[in-house]
């Protein structure tokens, strides 16, 4: 049981993700977790406004099942397999984040001070959750995929476009982490 409740190391998680990708290919699908947003827009009737959403979304119900499963998986871990230990973060990172007012870095998966519902009505919370989410949804469709579609599936298939996308992920992530977050977290 202890092996299950402890945090899983990278050399366990990485191969399991690769197996997951192979299983989806065997099921005749692809490992990509961002297409569900387009499917939901289409179900909500966005096809009336843009051609991009006019497609047979019934064929994409499988990706809604995958993300429903991803919700259940998160629930199961938090209920039954949760580790009681703090995450094993780099001490320099912990010190830095404490300086931004995050009291106990690594206590939960996300900083509770920033990602709670009441934070939504603060400028900080709005930027992190609403603007952040918007950029993820906009960027992933523009790039034609996310971490699973490009960084895992695309690179595994030696696709140059995916490498360019991953470089983009890092350009954006570095800009946010080094330049924007220090301002946002001090708001």
């Amino acid at each position, binding site marked *: 049981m202890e092996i299950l409740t402890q945090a899983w190391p990278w050399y366990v998680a990485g191969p399991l993700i690769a197996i997951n990708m192979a299983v989806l290919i065997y099921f005749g699908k692809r490992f990509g977790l961002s297409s569900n947003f387009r499917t939901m827009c289409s179900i909500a009737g966005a096809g009336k406004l843009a051609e991009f959403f006019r497609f047979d979304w019934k064929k994409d119900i499988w990706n809604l099942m995958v993300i429903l499963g991803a919700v259940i998986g998160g629930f199961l871990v938090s209920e039954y397999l949760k580790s009681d230990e703090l*995450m094993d973060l780099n001490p320099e990172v912990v010190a830095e984040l404490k300086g931004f007012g995050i009291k106990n870095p690594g206590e939960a998966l996300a900083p509770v001070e920033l990602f709670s519902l009441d934070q939504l009505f603060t400028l900080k919370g709005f930027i992190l959750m609403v603007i952040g989410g918007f950029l993820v949804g906009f960027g992933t469709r523009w790039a034609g995929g996310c971490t699973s579609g490009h960084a895992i599936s695309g690179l595994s298939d030696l696709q140059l476009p995916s490498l360019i996308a991953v470089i983009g992920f890092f350009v954006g992530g570095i800009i946010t982490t080094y330049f924007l977050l220090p301002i946002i977290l001090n708001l």
Partner: protein
Amino acid sequence: MKLIKFLLVGVWMGVIFSKSEIISWFRIYEMFKFKSFHMYGVIGSAVILGIIFIQLIKSSKMKSIQGEEISIAGKDKGWKRYLFGGTVFGLGWALTGACPGPMYTLFGSGFTSFLIVIFSAAVGTFVYGLLKNKLPH
């Protein structure tokens, strides 16, 4: 059964995401600060094994569960959409600390606020759909 198998894949994925902490805002922050090997190890080992799997699938002409030939379509050529779209995605990834799949797992883990993040991402995709023809690809 057709759809249940995808639900099970999703559950298993959510468990991996959550137990390996790759859906953690803290891990993403650490990654972009280059202060931990964890995320690089996860993605790197997944890709190395993934390359082997895909080569095997292609060379063995393996059939899918429905008995059809598996063909893995390459990505469209070009670079603009990948670089620009990827950068926008990265800006958001470092803010939310979660990519599209993990957002759902975080919601399931009890972070109700991620429902708002998911909704915002859907709005982002909607706005992309409206502007698609005006953006460089």
